């Protein structure tokens, strides 16, 4: 395949061109309550072409091989338009020419597991959720995605890498009269099917939690000091800071770029944040990004000071910083953009009990329910929480969303715990879905967060 892709770029008439071909194999088994809603395995494929001509850099995506010449023509026209209209001039950072084929480490290759076995396991976990008190229904899916990616550029790089993710995830829904509450659950990773086995206790616990939420009180809106659980600290890090470390978010906003200069102090001196997609067995793991660059660990913030940024070849050159291998696409329908992969807060010294004691009065918030970033503002939701009085956990609360501003919130982080957890699912939606956006960290104490209650 790599040779065939190389021949498609011959005589392309540009300083640089690359092409990526992907075959995406998806297995989906979906339950709503006890009803099996869907089951099957399907394959899709497609091409992404990018060209750099006279400083204009543009892309085109197509489904069919016979449309690849048209894609190249469109990308060339687009690049020429950028140049002719005084648009952004692009140079690419030099990177080593690589020839490699990467086969993923899999503890139980899901492709070799019969779909009947996947169905049996999903039905079993679904049954555990449904058997808990006051559970009305579930939405639970087994989702397996294998991406066989082949990448070639005109500099000679030719890389083939397969990434496989397997998850069982969804929500469990409890109901009492008109009150409906839900809790999310996700297990999985990028290291094979066997990770999904023997996880009964987690499903039982999540089912029970959904029922308990029926007795929780909605949080009252206002400003609170909070301790965030490891998963929620991960969501907070991803939304409150991570997106601003993606160079393509800030590159065309001069004022934001100035504020995000390396060496700037943005956080308190207790916080260190790392993006590391080389950690094996994690859902964020990969070796090469979607422009054939080997991914490297990056310390983004060291004791509150900005020390690194995530880059594509284009942005690395534009910023004069090191290329990091973070240009990643959802699949063959998209050109790569800069994505976080695995991002986490480094653990420190304090126990959870010490953090609660330091908190005094406030909220303990647990598990992420999605987040969003726009400009320097962000929000994220917690699945549930507890009121804390004098360092002791009190009644359970629900309906918790938090808002903050990048430039004021990170300096409000007062203490970091000594534990550590990484998520087993991704799902960041920055224009494209990234199912490999892992996140996590230890418990974290943050002062003065705005919580929107009902």
């Amino acid at each position: 395949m790599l040779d065939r892709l190389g021949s498609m770029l011959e005589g392309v008439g540009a300083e640089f061109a690359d092409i990526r071909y992907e075959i995406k194999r998806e297995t989906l088994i979906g339950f709503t309550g006890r009803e099996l809603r869907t089951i099957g395995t399907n394959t899709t494929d497609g091409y992404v072409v990018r060209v750099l001509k006279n400083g204009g850099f543009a892309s085109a995506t197509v489904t069919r091989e016979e449309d690849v010449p048209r894609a190249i023509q469109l990308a060339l026209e687009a690049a020429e338009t950028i140049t002719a209209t005084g648009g952004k001039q692009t140079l690419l950072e030099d990177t080593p020419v690589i020839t490699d084929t990467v086969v993923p480490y899999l503890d139980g290759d899901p492709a070799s597991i019969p779909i009947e076995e996947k169905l049996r396991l999903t039905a079993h976990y679904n049954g555990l959720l449904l058997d808990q008190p006051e559970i009305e229904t579930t939405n639970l899916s087994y989702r397996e995605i294998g991406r066989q990616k082949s990448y070639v550029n005109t500099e000679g790089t030719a890389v083939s890498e397969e990434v496989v993710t397997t998850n069982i995830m969804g929500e469990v829904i409890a109901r009492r009269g008109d009150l409906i509450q839900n809790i999310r659950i996700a297990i999985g990773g990028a290291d094979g099917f066997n990770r999904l086995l023997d996880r009964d206790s987690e499903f039982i616990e999540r089912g029970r939690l959904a029922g308990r939420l029926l007795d929780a009180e909605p949080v009252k809106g206002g400003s609170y000091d909070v301790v965030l659980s490891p998963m929620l600290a991960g969501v907070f890090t991803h939304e409150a800071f991570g997106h601003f470390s993606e160079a393509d978010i800030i590159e065309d906003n001069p004022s934001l770029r100035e504020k995000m200069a390396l060496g700037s102090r943005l956080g308190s001196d207790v916080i260190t944040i790392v993006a590391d997609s080389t950690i094996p067995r994690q859902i964020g793991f990969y070796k090469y990004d979607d422009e054939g660059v080997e991914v490297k660990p990056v310390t983004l913030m060291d004791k509150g000071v900005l020390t690194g940024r995530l880059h594509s070849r284009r942005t690395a050159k534009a910023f004069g910083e090191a290329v990091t291998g973070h240009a990643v696409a959802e699949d063959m329908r998209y050109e790569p953009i800069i994505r976080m992969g695995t991002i986490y807060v480094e653990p420190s010294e304090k126990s959870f009990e010490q953090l609660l004691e330091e908190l005094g009065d406030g909220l303990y918030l647990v598990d992420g329910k999605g987040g969003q970033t726009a400009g320097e503002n962000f929000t994220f939701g917690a699945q549930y929480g507890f009121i804390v009085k004098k360092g002791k956990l009190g009644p359970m609360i629900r309906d918790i969303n938090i808002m903050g501003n990048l430039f004021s919130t990170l300096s409000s982080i007062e203490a970091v715990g000594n534990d550590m957890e990484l998520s087993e699912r991704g799902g960041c939606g920055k224009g494209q879905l990234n199912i490999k956006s892992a996140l996590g960290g230890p418990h974290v104490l943050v002062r003065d967060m705005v919580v929107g209650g009902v």
Partner: protein
Amino acid sequence: MKKLLEKAAKVADQAEVYSVRQDSGSIEMRNGIPTDISASIQSGYALRILKNGMIGTAYTKNLLDRDQLVSNAMDSLKGEVEAGFSFPGAADLPDSAGADPGVEKMGFRELHTYADGVLEQLRGKVEGQIDVYAGRGVEEVSVVNTTGLDVCTRSSDMYLYASLLFPNTEASVHRLHIDRKAGAFPEGKLDDLIALYKSGLPEVEVDSGRMKVMFMPDTLYTLLWRIGAATSGKSLYNRISPLQDKRGQRVLSEKFSYYGHANDPDNYEQRYFDDEGVPTRKHMVIDQGVFSGAILNLDYATKLGENPSGTGYRRDGEPVSALPSPYLAGGRIAPGKRSLAEMIREMDRGVIILGVLGAHSGNILNGDFSVGLNPGFYVENGEILGRVRDGMVAGNVYDVLQNVVAIENHLNTSLMGGKYPALLLDDVSVAAKK
């Protein structure tokens, strides 16, 4: 498509092939210059087969091996997913307006000219950064089945989007123009945007409390998402809707009516059939506060013993890989009688929500929302004082939509699809940092 359908018909009681082809291009102009241009030509095919009351599904993007696709659907059938419905028969539908030749043929230079025209109208009139985005697209959707249906629609759209960033921030106000045909921003719309921007320049701190809140059209999806979830056939069938057993009852303010109008000729994405080939029509969901109609696809219509409502769409992600599910295309809130200016004058103290963050994070099924203002403008005595610093608005749709003060007399095309008026509510919780 026909060959695929013939192959599938040989192994099934009924078969359906859905196909989509999309051809699109876009340009981004950030801080005054073209920064990115991209193009995309995508296609795909989805097959559904019914046999002995069971359904099998399969899809691909590149139809190279029809036998394999049929084989995948047969394998899926072995899972024994029950399906009580049948595919719809032949339908005599009006011809759609088709794709606009101007949009169909539009190259990147012409698209740039339109985007640059927007930039020219805004340049020098605001202090902050100006970003302009433009795009064009043509889509063809077909559904054929073995019960005689053979329908196809071709549509086009061109959009222009202007965003004005407040100085030294990424917070912005924006305006969208989208139409089936190629064309410039309507006169006056950008002047309105500049005036809006200037009124939000000061940053103000606000005391937390309950006050009037106005949802602008681009933010109403916060509320409608929750109503859509509660009125979906899926939620009603699974008995997880707060509106369970409340059909025909008044559940919201009688000032509030919500419906879908996919076949509205005024709709740039006009559709005469949904993604299952069911004819579309004006479909009332909330009629003067009364829960009047559920949003149904074929499957849930059959399960609930109702007629299909022409609201089954492949919405979640790639169209061919997503199964049809209940979705209200061409969403509308019935307009009221007040102008936007009159509604602002009615606000003694309150917030105008121009953008939200986190609409997806709350307990959607229960109707709860808790969103960040991005931005929100603070109003006192009918006058905008500036944009709120770190503010959130929260509530439950079934509570806040009892307190409708006024609805704008004009429908605006929303960034999230559909056409909506601004909606002024009373007694909504606002939390802010002060």
